[in-house]
């Protein structure tokens, strides 16, 4: 057999043994649906493209490190430095940053983007997240990245890079010094770090030394803030510890915890109205009295309790529907009325009785 036919035969035989892994097919299918999604919103994308190009030119220095995964690239809308200064959320955050760290005023905004702006409906709805990156001029400049909650404008995540001299990165400092640095960052950009219990531990990371710092509320297992220290970078995330200390299973049915009422009763306004902690409320309820009776013992009327809970729930509802747009009082009242019977059932409920 001539060598040519040998090779030909060999290749065809070997080809038979090569089967395309399932994972590849899945991945390509995903890419295709991603493409379709993008295709549908193309018209609006065009308008944004011009802004995107301008932003891309400004962002050339960051383009190298910012190699985001495909999906993020598609839903993240780049913004120019001008746009971010005009944006109410961005503006507020920048002011806060400039106020806390005056030196950042001279920094250049090298990257800015919004996540989850609905391109089909630009006028309505806000971004889920707005991100800004600021950099000091110079080869080893300080760098800050802020991720903001697009609805509330809260800072959700801060990344602080190169704030220590090159020869002496943050991680090389003592634990005490690191804690001070992180505390400072939290105090300046998030709020007080004092009321939280703090713990520091190293993470298993064979490549690089990494420390994790948890700031948790007393008795809470979820941290409120979490900071990671690695190399010359500190990053702090607001986790929120699950909005205020909450308790699960206020009532019991047949001796088992009953979660039915939790969504209504875990209400900060209610706790402050009753002047009780969630745990205390649960204790009281366990005695077999209803929320209304507890309120009555504190000289609070049923109507007051009902009002507080109903308005919290109504507001939540509206926020979910309108992306946090300001709502008119009328809708709020209407919703409260619809909710009232449900709320009333909850606050009159006694443990170990049927609903």
């Amino acid at each position, binding site marked *: 057999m*001539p*060598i040519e036919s040998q090779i030909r035969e060999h290749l065809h035989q070997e080809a038979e043994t090569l089967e395309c892994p399932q994972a590849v*097919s899945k991945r390509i299918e995903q890419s295709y649906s991603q493409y379709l999604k993008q295709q*549908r919103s193309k018209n609006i994308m065009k308008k944004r493209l011009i802004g995107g190009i301008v932003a891309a030119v400004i962002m050339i220095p960051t383009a190298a490190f910012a190699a985001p995964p495909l999906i993020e690239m598609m839903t993240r809308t780049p913004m120019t430095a001008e746009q971010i200064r005009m944006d109410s959320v961005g503006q507020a955050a920048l002011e806060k940053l400039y106020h806390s760290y005056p030196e950042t005023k001279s920094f250049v905004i090298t990257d800015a983007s919004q996540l989850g702006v609905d391109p089909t409906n630009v006028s309505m709805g806000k971004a889920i997240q707005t991100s800004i990156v600021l950099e000091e001029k110079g080869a080893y400049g300080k760098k800050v990245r802020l991720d903001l909650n697009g609805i509330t404008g809260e800072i959700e995540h801060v990344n602080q890079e190169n704030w220590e001299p090159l020869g002496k990165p943050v991680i090389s400092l003592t634990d005490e010094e690191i804690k001070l640095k992180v505390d400072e960052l939290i105090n300046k950009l998030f709020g007080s770090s004092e009321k939280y219990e703090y713990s520091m531990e190293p993470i298993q990371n064979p490549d690089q030394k990494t420390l994790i710092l948890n700031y948790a509320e007393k008795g809470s297992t979820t941290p409120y803030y979490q900071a990671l220290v690695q190399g010359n970078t500190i990053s702090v995330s607001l986790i929120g510890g699950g909005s205020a200390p909450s308790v699960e299973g206020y009532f019991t049915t047949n001796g088992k915890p009953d979660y039915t009422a939790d969504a209504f009763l875990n209400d900060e306004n209610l706790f402050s109205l009753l002047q009780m902690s969630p745990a205390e409320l649960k204790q009281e309820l366990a005695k077999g009295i209803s929320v209304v009776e507890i309120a009555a013992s504190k000289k609070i009327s049923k109507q007051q309790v009902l009002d507080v809970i109903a308005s919290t729930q109504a507001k939540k509802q509206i926020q979910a529907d309108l992306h946090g747009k300001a709502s008119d009082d009328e809708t709020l009242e209407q919703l409260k009325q619809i909710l009232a019977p449900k709320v009333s059932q909850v606050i009159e409920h006694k443990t170990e009785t049927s609903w």
Partner: protein
Amino acid sequence: MQSESMYHELIKMIEGDQQAFHTLYDATYRDIYRTVSFLVDHPQDREDIMNEIYMQMWTSLPNYDLDRPFHFWLHGLVIRQVQRFRVKSWRRFRIFDRIRVFSREELYWDQPKETTDGIDPEISKAMQKLTDKQRTVIILRFYHDYTLEEIATLLDIPVGTVKSRYHAGMQSLRKHMGNHSLERMEKNNAY
């Protein structure tokens, strides 16, 4: 692969027809995966390139030449993506890392394959010894049965270059495939 119907499927797919996408994918993925596998050794790289190729499909339709068969366009796509990937990977790794990657790749190839029935391991090994450029030409020539002229068009290089790569490749293959084919090489040097 019927060129004309494939072209229509392509158009439908780009307009957003999921069904067309599946038809097209089922008709092509085996061929593409095998071609890529011949040209690229590392499984993870193969996966990445596969994905890139299909992503290119819905963007590079304008390059489609109706006078040429569908698979010609498709293989052009494959070749370009593989080449792009090589350029990228050289840039990405510094030399030091590259050495590590190389040694890992060889390790991978040293492992005995499970399904080697009927496959001459000697030829497999000889194929591995080819340079990337030679291998591309050899695969296109013998696996896809393209003429050297067609290969020149696909790779966008002069025919002379294709010929020299082809001959260098064949020589290297002969050398590494051992004696049993040497005696016949004189007689059957035609392609």
